[in-house]
C-alpha cells in the first residue's frame, strides 16, 4: 500500500476527520470568546467553567428530572446564558471603565470558584452521560469507523458557527453590534440601548460555551475539570486567530484541530503543546493574530 510520510493515506483521512471533530469544540468555544471580546473587551476566563457548567446542567437535567439530551441541548445553554447575564449585570459591568486585566482577573476568579464548588460536590472522575439513542452506533466509512454522534457534533458546530457569523456580519442587529463595538457613545446617541446589547452579547457568548458543554457531555466524562483542560488551548486558538475576529476564531479552531490531529499521528508526545508552539510563532510574525487587525 502506498503511504504518505510512512502513514497509509486511509489512516491519515481518519486522523484528519478526528482533528476536525476536536476542532469543532475549539471553534464553538473560541467563537464565544471572540464575540465577547469584540463587544465587551473582556477576556472571559470563565469560559471553560461555563462550558463545564453546560455539561453539568445537562447531566443534572437527566439524572434529577429525567430530561433527555435534545431538551438539554436547548435548556442548558439557556441556563448558562441566564447565569452569564446575572454575572454581567452584577459584576462585569462594573469593570468596563478599568483595564482589561481586571475583567480577566474577575472571570478567572469566578472560574476557580465554580470549578472548585463542582469538584467539592462531584469529585474529579466525572459522571457518565449516555449518547442519545438516535445517535448511537456509527458508520463504516471504509477508512475508519465514524460514531454517529461525532458526525453530529461536526454538523451542529458548523451550523452554529455559520449562523453566528451570518447574524453578526450580515444582519441589521449585527450591524448595530459592530457599530457599538466601534463607538458605543455615538450608537447610544442614535437611541440604541447599548448596555442591554452588551448584556445580551455576553449572555449569548457564554450560552455558546454551554452548548459546547452539552455537545461534549456524551464524548467526555461530565467532569469539573473538563473546562480547565480545554480553556488554555482555546485561548491559544483565539490569540492565533486574532482577538475579536469572529471568522478568525472559527477558522483557526478547525485548523488547529486538524493540525493537532496530525501531530497525534506523527509525534504524539508533542500533541498537547503543538498549539502553543504555533501561537508563539504567530505572535512573533503577526502579533495581532492571523485574522486580527492592529488597533
Amino acid at each position, binding site marked *: 500500500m502506498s503511504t504518505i510520510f510512512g502513514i497509509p493515506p486511509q489512516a491519515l483521512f481518519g486522523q484528519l476527520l478526528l482533528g476536525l471533530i476536536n476542532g469543532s469544540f475549539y471553534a464553538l468555544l473560541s467563537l464565544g470568546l471572540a464575540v465577547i471580546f469584540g463587544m465587551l473587551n473582556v477576556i472571559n476566563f470563565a469560559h471553560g467553567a461555563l462550558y463545564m457548567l453546560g455539561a453539568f446542567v445537562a447531566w443534572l437535567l437527566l439524572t434529577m428530572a429525567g430530561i433527555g439530551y435534545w431538551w438539554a441541548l436547548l435548556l442548558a445553554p439557556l441556563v448558562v446564558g441566564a447565569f452569564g447575564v446575572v454575572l454581567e449585570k452584577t459584576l462585569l459591568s462594573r469593570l468596563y471603565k478599568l483595564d482589561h486585566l481586571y475583567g480577566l482577573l474577575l472571570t478567572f476568579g469566578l472560574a476557580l470558584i465554580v470549578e472548585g464548588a463542582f469538584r467539592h460536590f462531584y469529585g474529579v472522575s466525572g459522571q457518565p452521560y449516555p449518547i442519545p439513542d438516535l445517535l448511537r452506533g456509527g458508520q463504516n466509512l471504509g477508512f475508519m469507523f465514524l460514531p454517529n454522534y*461525532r458526525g453530529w457534533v461536526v454538523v451542529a458546530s458548523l451550523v452554529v458557527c455559520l449562523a453566528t457569523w451570518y447574524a453578526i456580519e450580515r444582519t441589521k442587529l449585527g450591524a448595530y453590534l459592530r457599530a457599538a463595538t466601534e463607538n458605543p457613545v455615538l450608537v447610544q446617541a442614535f437611541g440604541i440601548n447599548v448596555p442591554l446589547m452588551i448584556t445580551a452579547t455576553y449572555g449569548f457568548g457564554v450560552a455558546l460555551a454551554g452548548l459546547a458543554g452539552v455537545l461534549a457531555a456524551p464524548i467526555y466524562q461530565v467532569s469539573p475539570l473538563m473546562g480547565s483542560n480545554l480553556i488554555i488551548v482555546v485561548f491559544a486558538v483565539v490569540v492565533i486567530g486574532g482577538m475579536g475576529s469572529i471568522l478568525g476564531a472559527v477558522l483557526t479552531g478547525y485548523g488547529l484541530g486538524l493540525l493537532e490531529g496530525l501531530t497525534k*499521528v506523527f509525534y504524539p508526545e508533542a500533541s498537547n503543546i503543538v498549539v502553543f508552539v504555533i501561537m508563539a510563532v504567530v505572535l512573533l510574525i503577526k502579533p495581532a493574530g492571523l485574522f486580527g487587525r492592529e488597533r
Partner: protein
Amino acid sequence: MIARLLAGAALAALAVGSAQAQQGKISGDVVKIGVLNDRSGLYADLGGEGSAVAVRMAVEEVGGKILGKPIEVVSADHQNKPDIGSNLSREWIDRDGVDVIVDVPNSGVALAVQEVTREKKTIFLMQGPATSRLTGDACSPTGFHWAYDTRALAVGTGQAIVKEGGKSWFFLTADYAFGHQLETDTAAQVKKAGGTVVGAVRAPLNTADFSSFLLQAQSSGAQVIGLANAGGDTITSIKQASEFGLTQSGQQKLAGLLIFLSDVHALGLQVAQDLVLTTGFYWDMDDEKRAWSEKYKAKTGKMPTMVQAGSYSSVKHYLKAIEAAGTDDGPTVAAKMKEMPVNDMFAKNGKILPNGRMVHDMYLARVKKPSESKGPWDYYEIIRTIPGDEAFATMAESGCKLPG
C-alpha cells in the same frame, strides 16, 4: 536486707529512667503524618482526601496517641508536579517536623519524594504510585511500597489475558515514568507467556481526546490494546474505545492495566463491564474488609480504592512499629516494620522485603455486567487470588542495591 532494698530502688530507677528515655524518643513530642497527593487533578478521586480520611481512621483506632504523645495528620496537594512534591516534602520534614509521608500518587512525583526521604532518613509509605522502580533501582532504606506496583499489574492482568488467547499487544501509554514502566513490565510478562508486542503510542498525561490514539491502536491489528495509563486518562480512553466500537467487533480486546474502583464507578457498568483488572483490595471480599469499608463510606460517601485502604494499612503498621521500637526515628522504625508481619483488614501475613516492597496477595477481578450488580459499588467479581510471591518481584529480581 539493705542491699536488697538498694538494688530494688536502683532497678526501679532504671525502669523509670528507660521509660522516660523511650518517651523522649518521639521527635518534637508529636508524631506528624503528612498525606501528600493529588487533591484536585485527575488522580484526586483514587487517593486525594480519601487517603487522608483513611489515615485519620488508623490514627483514631489507636486513640490519637502513641507512646503517650499525640499523633497529628496534615495533608497537601502536589498537583502532579515532581518539583512541588519534593519542595513540599522538604518543607514538611525540615520545618514542620513531619515524620512520615503517605500516598504520593503519580510515579514521577513519588520518585522525586523518594530522593528527599532517602536523604532525610524519613519513612515514606507509597500507595498511589505504581512504578516498580520505587523498590528497584530507586529503592530507599526508609521507602515502603504498599498497595500494588506495575509488576503485580503486569503479572495479574497481562498473563491472564495472554492465557485467554490475547497474544498480540499494542500499548496506549501515558507518557511519563509510570506509563513507561507499566508498559515495560507488561511487555515482559506478555513475552514470557508467549505473546508479542506489535507497537505502542505515547499519549501526554491528561489527554482529553484519545480517539486518534485508539484509531492507531485499531489499525495496528493487535488482538489486545493495553491501556498503560491511570485515573482520568483510563476513564476517557475506555469510554471513547466503546464509542468507536473498538471492542464490539470482537476482534480486539481492551486491557485496562491499572483500574481503580473509582474509575469503574465513574464509567458506569454499562461501559466498564467485563474489563479484567488487577487490584490489591476490594471492599466486598470478607467481613473485616466490609466492616472497615462501610465505616469509611459513612465518612466519605464512597467505597475505598486500594490506594485509600492501603494508606490505612501502612499507617497502622507504621504506628505498631513505633510502639514496638519505642521511637519514631526513621531508620529504626523502618527496620522494625520489616521485621513484623502485616496483619490487618488489608493484608494477611504480608511481609516486607528489604527493598521496602510489602508482599501480599493480589486479586484478578472482572467487572460485573449491569445485570449482575446489586447496586452502586457492587462492581467486581474476584476470579483469581494471585499469591504475593508470584505477583511481586523478589529482592534479587528487583534490582535494588540495598543489603538484604
